[in-house]
């Protein structure tokens, strides 16, 4: 009996490492959120005063609002494009056997594994070579490029567990390919699609480095955050950062609601 109790309350070396890692994962996020309410314009310890004035300032800032709009616009289109292309490809990769399948399934992951800076300058060179003007469109194209592999990875893990005989049962009962998709496959994979949509949106929403190279005159949120960081510390950075964090966290919450996060890994 004693032994059991002992075991339960013993904190091992493993626990210490875990606690340490988790604290340091959360620390930066906490610091930012906390100091967005600080009344001083520099980061001082201990925190002095509580204010919402920086929030007011940010929300009245035209630059911020337009960047937010752009980020949302880009995020939505990116997630639509990458979900369509990625899910179709994932169906092919999980349902059919064909030549060079292994090679193809590794190749499609390349855009995810190459350093972002190289992807960014490649795309910049490409657009400039073809004299395509930089705009939000070039940003969307570039973001979708690295989001597609994520969609494929996640959808593969979902579709491998999908019982193909359910789809065959639908066809057996008289559904043609379109009806089988509409009434059976789509409703079953819908939660995964919602999850992937949120994740791709979050990826696009946070992307900085590639955007930095391929964006034209307009701004996305990370671009204005970067601009502010380079210009020096301003308390409004904390506010914008907090808003960005809150949006990302909400997305992950939604993902978790629709599809168990664990199944994505």
């Amino acid at each position, binding site marked *: 009996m004693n032994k059991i109790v002992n075991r339960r309350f013993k904190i091992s070396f*493993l626990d210490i*490492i*875990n606690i340490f*890692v*988790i604290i340091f*994962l*959360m620390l*930066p*996020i906490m*610091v*930012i959120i906390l100091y967005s309410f600080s009344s001083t314009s*520099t*980061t001082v*310890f201990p925190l002095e005063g509580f204010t919402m004035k920086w929030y007011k300032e940010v929300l009245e800032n035209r630059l911020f609002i337009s960047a937010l709009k752009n980020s949302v616009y880009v995020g939505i289109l990116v997630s639509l494009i990458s979900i*369509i*292309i990625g899910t*179709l*490809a994932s*169906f*092919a990769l999980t349902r*059919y056997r*064909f030549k060079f399948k292994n090679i*193809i399934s590794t190749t*499609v992951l*390349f*855009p995810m*594994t*190459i*350093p*972002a*800076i*190289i*992807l960014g*300058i490649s*795309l910049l*060179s*490409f657009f400039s070579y073809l004299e395509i003007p930089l705009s939000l469109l070039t940003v969307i*194209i*570039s973001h979708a*490029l690295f989001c*597609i592999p994520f969609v494929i990875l996640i959808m593969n893990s979902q579709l491998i567990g999908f019982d193909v005989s359910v789809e065959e049962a639908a066809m057996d009962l008289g559904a043609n390919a379109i009806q089988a998709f509409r009434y059976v496959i789509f409703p079953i994979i819908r939660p995964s699609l919602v999850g992937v949509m949120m994740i791709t949106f*979050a*990826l696009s929403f*946070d992307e900085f*480095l590639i955007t*930095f*190279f391929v964006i034209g005159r307009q701004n996305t949120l*990370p671009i204005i*955050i970067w601009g502010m*960081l380079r210009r020096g510390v301003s308390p409004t*950075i904390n506010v914008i*950062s907090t808003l*960005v*964090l809150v949006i990302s*966290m909400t997305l*992950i919450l939604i993902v*978790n609601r629709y599809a168990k*996060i*664990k199944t994505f*890994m």
Partner: protein
Amino acid sequence: MKKRNKHIYLLSPLYIYLILFFFAPIFILFIYSFWLKSSSGFIHTFTLQNYIKIFSNPLYLTVIRNSILIGLVTAVICVLASYPVAYAIAFKYKKLQDVILYIILISLFSSYLVRVYAWRIILGRYGLINQILIYLKLIKEPLTFFLYSPTSVIITLVFILIPFTILPIYSSLTNISIDLHEAAADLGANKFKTFFKVTLPLSKSGVTSGFIFSFVLATGDYVTPQLVGGTQGLMIGRIISDQFGMAFNWPFGSSLAYFTLFLIVLTVNLFIWIVKILKIGR
């Protein structure tokens, strides 16, 4: 028959997209690396001059070497620190599993730029660590050893990238069934033996991909060195990007990018080869 080729229809949007916006761009970048810069634009020629230039100025080689070293150290620390975490989530914390995974995911998906910036607030000369230490009267003058140096870059990169190593290791560990552990224990292996003979070899794939992920991302990082690295922490990303910005020497930037990419791929393959010949656990 008709069914046979269905996969091609499903894959063709992806193929088109990748060829147009991935393979074509990296190919064009490759072409650029053989051009030259002139006062009016770029000269479309074929010369190795840009690559020769990399070797002629020790600055470039030093920065590339430092970047790769920082990447390697970061990746090693990431793997070493995330293994216990992944192991504990997979086998020890049954109840806390979801919560910890959730925290890791939040961290992974919360803005990378913001997190790097937060580390600057924490680590800076008048950052939170120094302020707290002074407040607690543990020190009089700010500590400086972790400021604006490769060390601060590595600390920051580790905490930014650790989710990328925890997750693959975790998922490779969850593929190991508890049965295997029990079987090993049954056959008289003690905890350490079980770990080295069973757990570690089977999680090799997770460790490998976690290492590769964190190494590539760290080596090519652009934001961290600029925000927390100071002049000592200069990394290759900055130099490449400057060629596409102020210096306006795209051809040279392209050759730097290709040379760095070559070294990264080489290092990754070297790592895979080492893992193979080590034959961990056999």
